[in-house]
């Protein structure tokens, strides 16, 4: 069913579109270390795509390739039907790809609202001079951007901490603020690097609900890396499994769960047996 080029409708009624991003034979080396070895997979519009794998499998490197932070030595990244030339992360952001980080990367001294507003940066057109005078266009622009930021704050239920400096928040809330900032960019693809790491069960449930709601309400395509297998299997439409830089599985959660190579990678097999 999912081979249909124009997309398909999932069992729970979600519309999955055509392929929006494709990774073709990506290889990434750090000196002599091959972090990613010849990996290919695609991402469809509107789906939740998970990348899983044991520690050091190359998941975060893969996400960094998508976000433009790393430029692979070999292979091609195709985005919206065109081959993407090597570009700077801010250019990638302008193309509509936003991300969160494994180790939270917020501006600690700034308020939640200001942090979310930084996510609007790619949508601001007026120059430094106009913004410092703050008249006419600049004012109207900021008002419009603030409105978007406020909708996201409302959506993620963080109204109560709007004016709180990020440094005073709990870990779980910081993660949510990071998601808010990424969403503020109104991305077409959202990259989440371990959105639930270090959270308790309740926070994980909240975060899962937000991820599903984001996908549902805004139709955002989501690529996420996650350790918690239960969460991945519940959330995602399709899963890529990596181990030692190689792709060892790709398919629906059900397929992946029954894939022998994946079971071996997770449960471990005696290599010299």
């Amino acid at each position, binding site marked *: 069913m999912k081979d249909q080029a124009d997309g398909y409708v999932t069992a729970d009624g979600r519309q999955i579109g055509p392929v929006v991003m494709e990774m073709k034979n990506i290889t990434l080396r750090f000196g002599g270390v091959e972090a990613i070895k010849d990996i290919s997979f695609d991402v469809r519009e509107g789906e939740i795509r998970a990348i899983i794998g044991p520690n050091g499998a190359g998941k975060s490197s893969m996400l960094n390739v998508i976000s433009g932070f790393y430029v692979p030595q070999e292979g091609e990244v195709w985005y919206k039907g065109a081959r993407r030339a090597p570009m700077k992360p801010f250019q990638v952001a302008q193309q509509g790809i936003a991300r969160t980080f494994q180790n939270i990367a917020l501006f600690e001294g700034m308020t939640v*609202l200001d942090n979310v507003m930084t996510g609007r940066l790619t949508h601001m057109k007026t120059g430094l001079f106009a913004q410092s005078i703050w008249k006419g266009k600049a004012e109207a622009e900021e008002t419009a951007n603030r409105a978007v930021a406020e*909708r996201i704050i*409302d*959506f993620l239920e963080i*109204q109560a901490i709007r004016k709180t400096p990020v440094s005073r928040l709990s870990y779980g809330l910081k993660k949510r603020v990071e998601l808010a900032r990424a969403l503020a960019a109104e991305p077409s693809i959202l990259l989440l690097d371990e959105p639930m790491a270090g959270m308790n069960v309740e926070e994980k449930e909240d975060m899962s609900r937000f991820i599903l709601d984001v996908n549902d309400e805004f139709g955002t395509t989501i690529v996420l890396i996650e350790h918690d297998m239960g969460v991945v299997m519940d959330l995602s439409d399709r899963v890529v499994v990596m181990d030692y830089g190689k792709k060892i599985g790709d398919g629906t959660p059900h397929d992946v769960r029954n894939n022998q190579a994946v079971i071996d990678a997770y449960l471990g097999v005696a290599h010299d047996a």
Partner: protein
Amino acid sequence: MAYTLVSADGPQSVPALLHRNAKQFADAPAYREKEFGIWQSWTWAQTRDEVEALALGFLELGAAEGDFIAIIGRNRPYLYWAMMAAEMVGVVPVPLYQDANAEEMAYVLDHCGARFVVAGDQEQVDKVLEVQDQLTQFERIIYLDPRGLRKYDHAKLDQYTAVQDMGRKARDKHIAELEARQAKLTYDSTGVMLYTSGTTGKPKGVVLSNRNIIETAKSSSAFDKLRQTDDILAYLPMAWVGDFIFSVGQAMWTGFCTNCPESADTMHVDLREIGPTYYFAPPRVFETQLTSVMIRMEDASRMKKWLFDKFMAVARRVGPDILDGKPVGFMDKLKYGLGEVMIYGPLKNTLGLSRVRVGYTAGEAIGPEIFDFYRSLGINLKQLYGQTEATVFITAQPDGEVRSDTVGVTCPGVELKIAENGEVFYRSPGVFVEYYKNPESTADTKDADGWVATGDAGFIEEGSGHLRIIDRAKDVGKMADGNLFAPKYVENKLKFFPNILEAVVFGNGRTECTAFINIDLTAVGNWAERNNIGYASYQELARHPQVMGQIQSHVEEVNASIAEDEMLSGCQVHRFVVLHKELDADDGELTRTRKVRRKVIGEKFEDIINALYDGSPSVSTVTEVTYEDGRKGSISATLEVRDAKVFADTRKMAAE
């Protein structure tokens, strides 16, 4: 029943009031709600239009006169409008507690037979859908926040705005019917039905008529001189009668503005931004706020702490008198004025209480220290006594006669009487019509002459005419000499001391009262630490002579204050012990909501009670305890029994 307050003219229903306000205060704000970081507001004229659109939508959906419509969600203007729209079409609105679970909700929805439910969000919709099979008359849900509901089967769902649009489109078709239905509303038609929380047995639906709502709103607004320009923050459950009367009854009558917070978590921020002039909060809200102020002051710089302490002492001395308009010395006035600029003003601003002209607390006893703290800052905090069956108001404290130990004088139009056993009865225009589908309970509570039993015991103070509530009527007993025995009254007084966590007073049928005391480990432990007093266990701390001494002085202070009460002077504590263990729900000594189980304690600690009455100086005892993991053990201890000074009734002495 002959009520003198029924007016021949004037609006006879809540919708009639809405139309009056839309004309009279057309451009004044009626509702505000913070959304997306901005306070959105609606004028009375806009409110009328919104309500009317929804009412027309209800007609389009087929709402019939006499139907019930349930309303579930946090305080939002849209839900208040739903109540008004329901009344417009002759339907009875039934607000429900939003934190009720699905089963509790099923009972109420089925009991009233609601055909429509207006739900705030997905959570409430889910609960109703979960129990819909148990409901025979349920037809549709109208939901407010569409989030997460996009994929739901909409066979039984409508979005709130869609119903309004439906109504606007069908205006020509239904407007005549809508006007006809409103014209039929009288003082005797049902205005709202509120379910009592049901701590004992199933919840009961209290039917309140337009007369109840409007007469109560009218007289209580006059009592506190509420103005059209007042602001109120609506944050307490919509299903609670207080919220209904403040945010709908009084708001409609006086035309003041109801402000809804952005979410439950932002209440304190929103409180600061709105700065209500009329404010209600249960004692625990005031208590938490005070604690947080005190903790923050402990962390403040030395200079600031010194200023705070200095000026708070001034405030405590003269603040309440200044508030009551009593004469105060010139120097004190000057100092208080300086304090207002430097401490009280900024503090009130932080608390969001700068503009409060009338503040109320009720529901349970408030500690005198907490009460006095707010009053000394110049916040006009008062107490009232009421219940759902009375449409809130039974008694309230008039300005200038505010004390922490009474609940005030009767509200205009209310009559009180005290029964033989001390139970308080009242009669007023606010007395409810009936319990829905429950004539037996109605007859039990309200007699043929309209007198309603409160279930509380109390007495009217001679001289001031203030009502004082002692305890639940069923808990009040008699002492051997026939005096009233009100254990909870004494226990509450004891518990106001931070050092005392729990107290149990004995004396029913005996000649004198005695008490068990539990120390508060946090407070006493903190004190011990600051004074270099070492202790190894709760037990050791509890029987430390200095701790015993402190407790004794607290008991004697309480005795002195009880002695001033003619009715209760017999309840002074003659002897007491400080218990060697904390009373615990795991051991069955307390209920899960931390209420004392007198019978269990009486049996379990019989030996100690005997020692309290036979005059022995100490008692050795072994007590079984249950640990958290369910294992059992025992503690043995020797407790010192102390005598406390008792005071003669000062009034009786004077009379003799």
